[in-house]
């Protein structure tokens, strides 16, 4: 019985999803093609949360910062008008370098706030968003001069709300095409996500992975055995931030448009909720949880406004329901996990 307990949460959400699909009255093909897009857009974020959980730091809500690094890289690319595959790879390179730097900073901060990592990472996410806004709303045009005047607001200070990146959207067209639901989609982004997942799997089995798990298991013992715990925790956050920045680039590539000030806002909450829906706990998460979670959570996400419209003649109700699900899942997970923690102490 104990073995099946961890599948309770995913099962509950599976039932909810099925009810939602029936309630929304949409075809399976529609759900599938929407799900493909959402899987491609959000898959890597959820994987990015895994390693900090292994390191015992809970959910890293600061993955927002990685997304901001990706935004910065894409803005630089758009400013210099480097498009195509070259631009895409360059964007990944710049955002990775930025995320390594930012990840180190976040890791350093979180090491100073041991035991409060999650709430601290939320505040870091908010603060980083503000600093980012300051940079691009005010910094551009006053201190930094843009080369491409199309991305600027007409008053000359600050960037426009969105940058057209349709060039990148075509990038994977025609490569390994498969039929998903009603549309033809490329398999390439899915392969990238699977490669990232395998990479994380490989890291968790490697030497540093064992150190990360040791630190997550018992930080004092690890320190005593001679592991540099602060360094290990910092590395965990760096990996998480780098993956998040890659995730955001995939997200924007799929949409083909960068909303400079809003695209990153809820990814931390939704990714965390998705991972927890997949059966992860705050202490234990693996790639299977991530994949199951993304599929289930986003199925619900797709169908709940439609179900709200269909059943109650009110799309907003479905909208509220899904944001309640996102936050509620996290609260529920906290209650369950932390109770488990106190039981295991006894």
């Amino acid at each position: 019985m104990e073995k099946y307990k961890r599948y309770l949460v995913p099962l509950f959400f599976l039932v909810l999803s099925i009810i939602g699909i029936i309630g929304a009255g949409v075809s399976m093909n529609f759900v599938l093609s929407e799900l493909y897009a959402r899987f491609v857009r959000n898959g890597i974020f959820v994987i990015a949360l895994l390693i900090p959980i292994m390191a015992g730091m809970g959910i890293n809500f600061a993955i927002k910062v990685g997304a901001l690094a990706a935004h910065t890289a894409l803005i630089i690319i758009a400013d210099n008008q480097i498009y195509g595959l070259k631009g895409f790879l360059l964007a990944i390179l710049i955002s990775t370098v930025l995320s390594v730097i930012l990840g180190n900073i976040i890791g350093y901060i979180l090491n100073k706030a041991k035991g409060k990592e999650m709430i601290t990472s939320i505040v870091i996410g908010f603060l980083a968003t503000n600093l980012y806004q300051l940079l691009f709303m005010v910094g551009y045009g006053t201190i930094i001069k843009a080369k491409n005047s199309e991305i600027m607001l007409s008053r000359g200070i600050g960037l426009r709300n969105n940058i057209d990146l349709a060039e990148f959207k075509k990038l994977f067209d025609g490569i390994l095409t498969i039929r998903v639901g009603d549309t033809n989609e490329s398999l390439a982004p899915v392969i990238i996500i699977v490669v990232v997942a395998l990479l994380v799997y490989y890291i968790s089995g490697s030497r540093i992975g064992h150190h990360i798990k040791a630190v997550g298991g018992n930080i004092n013992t690890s320190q005593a055995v001679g592991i540099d715990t602060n360094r290990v925790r910092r590395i965990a956050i760096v990996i998480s931030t780098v993956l998040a920045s890659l995730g955001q680039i995939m997200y924007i590539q799929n949409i083909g448009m960068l909303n400079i000030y809003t695209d990153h806002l809820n990814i931390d909450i939704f990714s965390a909720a998705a991972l927890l829906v997949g059966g992860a706990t705050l202490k234990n998460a693996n790639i299977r949880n991530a994949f199951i979670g993304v599929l289930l959570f986003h199925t619900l996400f797709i169908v709940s406004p439609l179900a709200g419209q269909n059943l109650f003649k009110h799309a907003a109700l479905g909208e509220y329901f899904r944001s309640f699900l996102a936050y509620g899942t996290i609260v529920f997970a906290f209650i369950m996990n932390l109770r488990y923690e106190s039981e295991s102490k006894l």
Partner: protein
Amino acid sequence: MKNKKVQIPQIIICIYLLILLVVVNVIGIPIVGIINESFIKWAMNGVLVLSLVPMINVGAGMNFGMPIGISAGLIGLCIAIELRLQGVIGFITAMIVGSLIAIVFGLCYSKILNRLKGKEEIIGTFAGFSFIPIMNFFWTLVPFKNRQMLYPVGGKGLRPKISLKNYFEGILDNSLVVKIGEFQIPVALILFFLILCFLIQYLYRTRVGHVMTAVSENEKFAQISGVNINKYRTKGIILSTILAAIGICVYSQSYGFVELYDGPFMMAFPAVSAILIGGASSKSATVKQVLIGTYLLQTTYLLSIPVANAILVPEITEVLRMIITNGIILYAFLYKGGSKKYGKI
């Protein structure tokens, strides 16, 4: 040494305030108007900041779940508007109804927090966040009839911003305004705020207050002495929720609008920031810290508006405001935490 460290956020804010004051002077904006405005902002936000005190002092940390109490107050306000109660009666009804609902909400909230001691801040944040969609259901479905609060089109569901113009806008702000030269002091508003502060101050001189403080200072010791900790925590959390409900009533009458839906989403953060500037920690807070912190933070906000307008980027006000708010909270997590150390002693 320790005292010196506590002062750092205050020093930074004071320096920032001075810089802003100099800039405002250079631009040539009349300082008197700003001072008058600062009194209103102080008392308007003060009650929300005050609502943090009871929870901190029973060891339940900063109340990031403030949207729960705020929602209770908003329901009170909406009921007063629905009954078309105007003036003082409307305002008092809003506060009483809000407080009664806050007792129920606070009780549920305390049930969650008492299960998860030591993690109140993160739990509170998400409990508050997840409470907003629940309230959104309520705002959409509640069968209120007063057209002034419903969506103009369709006539169903409350509108996101309800004007208080015909009800009790500025009921505290505009009554008993004393004019000394060019200065205008809203006596009723400040008096209301100070009376609440005094009541909380008085509470900590009574036996119940002493026990509450003991609980937050050393939970183990209090437990050994036979104090039912959960009972006192529940009391503290309910009191915080009630004060948040009253706080939003005061805030709304000054602001002139009742903000529903996502309005209360981030309201906890400026309040937490204010009390931290006052020098509070997540283990102890005093009314004096509330008074100082709120005044400093709100005045900085106020001064940054004309400065931002002068350099032609109005958005910068909001961004700077958020940077200050979140920066101070982050600072507090890094340098004033120490909850683990206390726990082990």
